[in-house]
């Protein structure tokens, strides 16, 4: 088929095919530089380069080369796979081939054929071999590229048999990688190759099943079941699963210290879990009951603890009975322990932990299966789950359900028909739980345990949701037990999982909005839809859960945090909040919190804030006005009342230092932050006026607590929070009010802080917390200019406009006042703290962008320090900071242009910046990400200063090739864009020399881009290939290869600017060659380090003269390998990685031309040079390197100016350490 297309230019002949079969030839085939193979070299380079899509940019003809090759590569791979380095290369090559797309395919048929080939080859390859560890990621890459690149229509057009076996193979691979990944985790390996491969495959599954409507219906169900099962298996303990089992079946268990920085599994594995959840939905029929089944088992476990008798698991799952029985004994012992002493046996603890871990994973999987968590959007019930629920809805007897709901505490078995109903749906877990709950007996801990788990039991799948409420209620009634005695045995991790799950569930399922769905499951809407008893119950239950957690788990910050987040979820939507506020619990929680009574005050401050937020949000639920008034009277007013009472006390100034008073103040401030956090567009009006009262009082507090930084910081934080959350909604008058109080705050702050010196024991960075907060406040105030949702119809707006500029305070005034305070306090030392530094530059960039006209009005010394800090930020800080600084320059330059005034300080400053930016762009290393920002700044600066004759002249020259049109640049957008584009080209092409942009093409210049990142791996030959290559070159003699004509003429090998190669001009090469020959003397030894053109010249001279010297060329470019043994491969990144033949101090003279103008490069090359030379060194590099050359190698700069074939923008120089004629 492809042969028929007119595009085929290179068709490997039979002889090629033959050679394809031998891996060495194959590899040579890839690398030899002769005519046709050149194309292949390119293909390979392209294959290997991370951006496979460059394929589409290839001319049509060339691109079919890889097509013919991939079969070959498969074969090659099978042959070379023992050698991991080469196997990596070939797999990567395949992965790139798998991502081929674009105009290369004349039509879809071609694509299908290509894909079929590819898949077939892949299957053959995989089926024939046992996959090695090192291959896993490569294979996963191929598959993932293949699935993400080829359109669904092409995939479905594959022969169904082939597609079937592909899916099959994918399934098996996924399962097996999953198992190996689990094993890796157990062994705690550093290099998680299988995990990476597994992630990749799961991701591919996600891509596949997300668009499964294109595929034959149901074709993914079986695979989904398998993958899902294997995942579950890997995460459950033996004998159901294989968790923690090493290869030989020994289970490992160790307790390690886990710190708070370690991510929770649900975040750490969120991608995996999302894929598994999706697969689970595909096979909902299988997976939901499976999960329930496992849960069931766990319920039985707990029951066995509770009932102290053999569990009735057999009925549910005979296979698992064995395990339960075995563990049952353990649990019994454990229980006895518990009765007699409070100590826990470690052995029992292990058993419990295993159990917790099982539950942990099951909850996680269930959570991801049942609901998505789209950030910011209203989460919908996944359609698969909805379908499942609808499908099963007919089997559910609503009456029974209602009866069940209506009779809490009663055994479901006692209601006729219920049990069958329960069983037919696999809803057994509810049954034992209820039964156990109904058991008589004064063992409070039983019920405590039960209650804890019941919250878990109730989370049955959607089809069974009606039962939820029943179980809830029963457990609710039965479990007013003291849990404290058992808390130490429970797992906070599991508690966390439970509330996380409940939150996820509540977001999606609670009060389903029918309008959002095309079809809705009856049971779902009757159970948890609006206005249902079920919804009320569950809300009540969740509230109980929250309250309970907050008291029992106050000491677990993460759990408490998840719990209050659940609470926020409950009230953040009006519909849910409406139900919440009807619950008595809610009111008691509110009262409890308002009165600061235990145990809520034991929560960490973050949790208390969120709790306050939730309480305020709840207040905006729908209530009749009396109730509402009452609510506010109980939630917010006590806060205000107590606060006012306190600060209005006559002797407040005297008692303010007392601990009780301080605590009260701190609690109030925390609560204010929480209230500010609760701001939403519809409540901003009332919250703002409430908070404003406090804010003015807070300014008084600033005075009172002027000497206690903790309190001051908290007060400023309240302001920051209010500005952050509310300013974008505020209308003009209200913003004005806020500006005013902020101004007052700043005044008090500066009064109390100017000249203050304190001895603070805290870490240095924390000492400046206040400064940081002030800057944050200013930035927040400024953000109004960017984000403004305020209502433009505000009442006073019209009046204010008519009164013109008669506004009392403007944002600019406040902010500039603030800057006046902040700038003198910010010293260069403080900029060393990353947080302060970031905030500072963010602030000044904002100011420059929004109020450029205010900058010249700053007092002189402030202006100066502002400019200095801009320069500092641009030149010495991280790339983000310099980007910010660059962004600040354009508005400043525009401002200058507007005023048309010269010789203002700002004008002079911009002149300085012009030079800086120019140098930065053209002469120094910089991050390519910054090119745009720098280019913009440069452009505006150039516009401003074009009348300045000298600079204009210089720039005009520099930009000769840059600006196509000869018209002087103006400030219009079109030109700017054109300028930016050509600048980018300019920077990328002409001056690639020292641009880091070169790295994109070649890894050799920057250590940060080293091979560690496998995705971005650059072409690099493996050792074996090199050996083979060298051998080949030796055989083919010196005239072979790509060298044309006289092999030793300069330019015989073409410059490759991607390698930063620039040959010397004939004269320079000759002059330098003469120089080294002379210095080396008769029979001397010369080393040319990265200076091939000098080497070539030497060889030429040698042949025309009698003088003999032995010369060695150390060079990175392997094209010079044509020079046989005199060529030594050299990579400056490994300066001393030289062949054994090169002995130290054996060269009379060494000439070096480091590829890059950087200190790093020079210092590495210097190592090589010092190693090789007896004494004499001749270095050719940029004039800018003079200082380093002197420092590193003690070299003096020569007046001789070397020239290149192509003009280089940088001044180039020679340096020597001996008396040379070059010097004068």
């Amino acid at each position, binding site marked *: 088929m492809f042969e028929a297309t007119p595009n085929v230019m290179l068709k490997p002949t039979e002889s090629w095919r033959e050679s394809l079969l031998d891996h060495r030839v194959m590899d040579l085939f890839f690398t030899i530089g002769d005519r046709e193979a050149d194309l292949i070299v390119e293909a390979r380079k392209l294959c290997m380069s991370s951006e496979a899509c460059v394929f589409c940019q290839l001319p049509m003809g060339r691109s079919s080369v890889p097509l013919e090759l991939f079969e070959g590569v498969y074969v090659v791979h099978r042959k070379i796979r023992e050698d991991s380095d080469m196997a990596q290369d070939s797999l990567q090559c395949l992965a790139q081939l798998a991502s081929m797309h674009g105009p290369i395919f004349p039509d879809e048929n071609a694509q299908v054929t290509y894909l079929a080939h590819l898949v077939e080859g892949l299957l053959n390859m995989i089926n024939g071999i046992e996959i090695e560890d090192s291959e896993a990621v490569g294979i996963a890459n191929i598959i993932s590229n293949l699935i993400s690149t080829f359109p669904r229509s092409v995939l479905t057009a594959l022969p169904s048999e082939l597609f079937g076996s592909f899916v099959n193979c994918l399934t098996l691979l996924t399962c097996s990688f999953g198992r190996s990944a689990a094993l890796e985790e157990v062994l705690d390996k550093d290099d998680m190759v299988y995990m990476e491969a597994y992630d990749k495959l799961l991701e591919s599954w996600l891509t596949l099943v997300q668009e499964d409507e294109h595929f034959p219906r149901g074709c993914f169900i079986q695979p989904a079941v398998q993958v899902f099962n294997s995942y579950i298996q890997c995460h459950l303990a033996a004998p159901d699963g294989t968790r923690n089992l090493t290869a030989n079946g020994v289970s490992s268990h160790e*307790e*390690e*210290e*886990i*710190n*708070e*920085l370690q991510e929770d599994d649900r975040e750490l594995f969120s991608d995996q879990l999302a894929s598994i959840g999706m697969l689970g939905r595909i096979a909902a029929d299988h997976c939901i009951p499976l999960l329930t089944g496992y849960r069931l088992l766990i319920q039985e476990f707990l029951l066995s603890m509770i009932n102290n008798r053999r569990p009735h698991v057999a009925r549910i799952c005979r296979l698992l009975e064995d395990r339960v029985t075995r563990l049952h004994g353990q649990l019994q012992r454990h229980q006895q322990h518990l009765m007699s002493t409070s100590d826990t046996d470690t052995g029992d603890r292990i058993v*419990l*932990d295993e159990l*917790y*871990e099982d539950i*942990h994973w099951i909850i996680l999987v269930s959570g991801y299966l049942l609901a998505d968590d789209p950030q910011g959007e209203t989460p919908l019930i996944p359609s698969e789950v909805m379908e499942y629920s609808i499908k099963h809805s007919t089997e559910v007897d609503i009456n029974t359900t209602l009866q069940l709901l209506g009779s809490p505490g009663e055994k479901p078995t006692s209601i006729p028909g219920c049990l069958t109903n329960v069983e037919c749906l696999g809803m057994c877990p509810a049954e034992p739980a209820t039964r156990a709950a109904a058991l008589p007996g004064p063992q409070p801990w039983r019920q405590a345990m039960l209650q804890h788990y019941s919250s878990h039991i109730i989370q049955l799948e959607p089809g069974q949701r009606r039962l939820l409420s029943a179980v809830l209620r029963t457990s609710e009634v039965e479990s007013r037990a003291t849990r404290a005695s058992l808390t*130490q045995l429970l*797992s*906070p*991790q*599991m508690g966390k999982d439970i509330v996380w799950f409940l939150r996820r569930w509540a977001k999606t399922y609670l009060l389903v909005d029918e309008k959002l769905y095309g079809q809705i499951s009856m049971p779902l809407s009757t159970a948890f839809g609006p206005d249902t008893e079920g919804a009320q119950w569950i809300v009540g239950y969740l509230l109980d859960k929250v309250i309970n957690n907050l008291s029992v788990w*106050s*000491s*677990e*910050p*993460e759990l*408490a945090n998840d719990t209050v987040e659940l609470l926020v979820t409950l009230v953040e939507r009006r519909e849910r909040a409406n139900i919440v506020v009807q619950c008595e619990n809610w009111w008691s929680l509110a009262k409890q919190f308002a009165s600061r009574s235990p145990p809520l*005050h*034991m*929560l*960490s*401050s973050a949790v208390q804030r969120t709790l306050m937020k939730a309480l305020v949000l709840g207040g905006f639920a729908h209530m009749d006005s009396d109730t509402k008034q009452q609510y506010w009277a109980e939630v917010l007013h006590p806060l205000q009342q107590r606060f006012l009472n306190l600060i209005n006390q006559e*002797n407040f*100034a*005297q008692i303010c*230092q*007392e*601990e009780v008073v301080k605590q009260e103040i701190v609690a109030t401030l925390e609560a204010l932050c929480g209230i500010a956090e609760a701001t939403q567009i519809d409540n901003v009006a009332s919250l703002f006026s409430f908070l404003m009262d406090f804010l003015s009082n807070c300014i008084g507090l600033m005075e009172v607590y*002027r*000497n*206690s930084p*903790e309190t001051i*910081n908290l007060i400023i934080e309240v302001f920051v929070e209010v500005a952050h959350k509310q300013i974008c909604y505020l209308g003009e008058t209200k913003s004005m009010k806020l500006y005013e109080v902020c101004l007052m705050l700043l005044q008090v702050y500066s*009064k*109390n802080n*100017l*000249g*203050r*010196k*304190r*001895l*603070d*024991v*805290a*870490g240095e960075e*924390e000492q400046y*917390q206040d400064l940081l907060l002030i800057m944050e406040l200013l930035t927040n105030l400024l953000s109004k200019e960017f984000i403004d949702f305020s209502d433009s119809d505000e009442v006073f707006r019209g009046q204010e406009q008519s009164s013109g500029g008669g506004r009392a305070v403007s944002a600019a005034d406040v902010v500039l006042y603030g800057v006046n305070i902040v700038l003198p306090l910010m010293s260069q030392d403080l900029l060393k703290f990353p947080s302060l530094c970031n905030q500072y530059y963010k602030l000044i960039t904002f100011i420059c962008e929004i109020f450029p006209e205010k900058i010249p009005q700053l007092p002189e010394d402030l202006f100066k320090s502002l400019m200095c800090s801009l320069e500092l930020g641009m030149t010495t800080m991280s790339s983000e900071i310099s980007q910010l600084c660059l962004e600040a320059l354009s508005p400043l330059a525009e401002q200058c242009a507007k005023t048309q005034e010269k010789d203002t300080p700002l004008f002079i400053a911009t002149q300085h910046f012009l030079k800086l930016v120019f140098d930065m762009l053209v002469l120094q290393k910089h991050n390519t990400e910054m090119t745009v920002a720098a280019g913009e700044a440069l452009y505006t600066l150039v516009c401003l200063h074009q009348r300045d004759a000298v600079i204009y002249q210089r720039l005009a020259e520099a930009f000769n090739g840059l600006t196509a049109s000869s018209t002087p640049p103006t400030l219009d957008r079109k030109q700017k864009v054109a300028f930016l584009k050509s600048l980018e080209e300019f920077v990328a092409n002409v001056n690639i020399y020292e641009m880091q942009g070169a790295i994109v093409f070649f890894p050799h210049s920057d250590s940060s881009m080293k091979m560690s990142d496998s995705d971005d791996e650059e072409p690099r030959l493996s050792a074996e290939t090199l050996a083979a290559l060298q051998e080949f070159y030796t055989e083919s003699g010196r005239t072979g290869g790509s060298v044309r004509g006289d092999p030793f003429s300069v330019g015989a090998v073409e410059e490759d600017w991607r390698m930063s190669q620039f040959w010397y001009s004939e004269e320079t090469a000759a002059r330098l060659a003469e120089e080294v020959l002379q210095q080396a003397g008769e029979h001397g030894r010369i080393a040319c380090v990265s200076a091939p053109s000098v080497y070539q010249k030497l060889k030429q001279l040698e042949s025309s003269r009698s003088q003999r010297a032995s010369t060695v060329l150390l060079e990175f470019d392997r094209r010079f390998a044509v020079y046989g043994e005199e060529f030594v491969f050299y990579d400056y990144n490994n300066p001393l990685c030289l062949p054994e033949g090169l002995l130290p101090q054996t060269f009379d003279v060494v000439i070096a031309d480091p590829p890059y103008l950087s200190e790093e490069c020079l210092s590495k090359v210097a190592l090589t040079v010092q190693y090789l030379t007896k004494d004499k060194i001749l270095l050719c590099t940029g004039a800018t390197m003079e200082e380093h050359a002197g420092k590193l190698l003690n070299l003096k700069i020569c007046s001789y100016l070397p020239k290149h074939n192509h003009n280089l923008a940088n001044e180039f120089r020679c340096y020597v350490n001996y008396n040379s004629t070059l010097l004068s």
Partner: protein
Amino acid sequence: MADTDLDFTSGDAGASATFPMQCSALRKNGFVVLKGRPCKIVEMSTSKTGKHGHAKVHMVGIDIFTNKKYEDICPSTHNMDVPNIKRNDYQLVDISEGFLSLMMDNGDVREDLRVPEGDLGKEIESKFSAGEEMLVTVLSAMGEESAVALKPMTK
């Protein structure tokens, strides 16, 4: 503001030097008693033993008087002692033999506080000898006192 009827020196006579607080409610930059010394918490982190273990709080505090570093780790359910901290500003009237003479709000002068060591002490002395008027902030906790900050008098 200055209520001369109140005796400040005895104002805290009845208050205890410390009060208990659950570990989880402590905050960074707050205060706690570590190894019997009043400390400012400069680092606070939680950890747990095993995935299903209970939280433990790890605290690093710096003695507010001696600048010595103390560390402690305890279950987050435990109660820790928190020192009652007070800060008062006094006007500096004299320095003699390494002791500060500070005037309290009621006009009494106390002369029992040493000039603090280090930069702050030097700064106080040099400013004082240059004739500048200033307020000195005195921190007191658990029966100890020390000057911790200075602030030029606002005119």
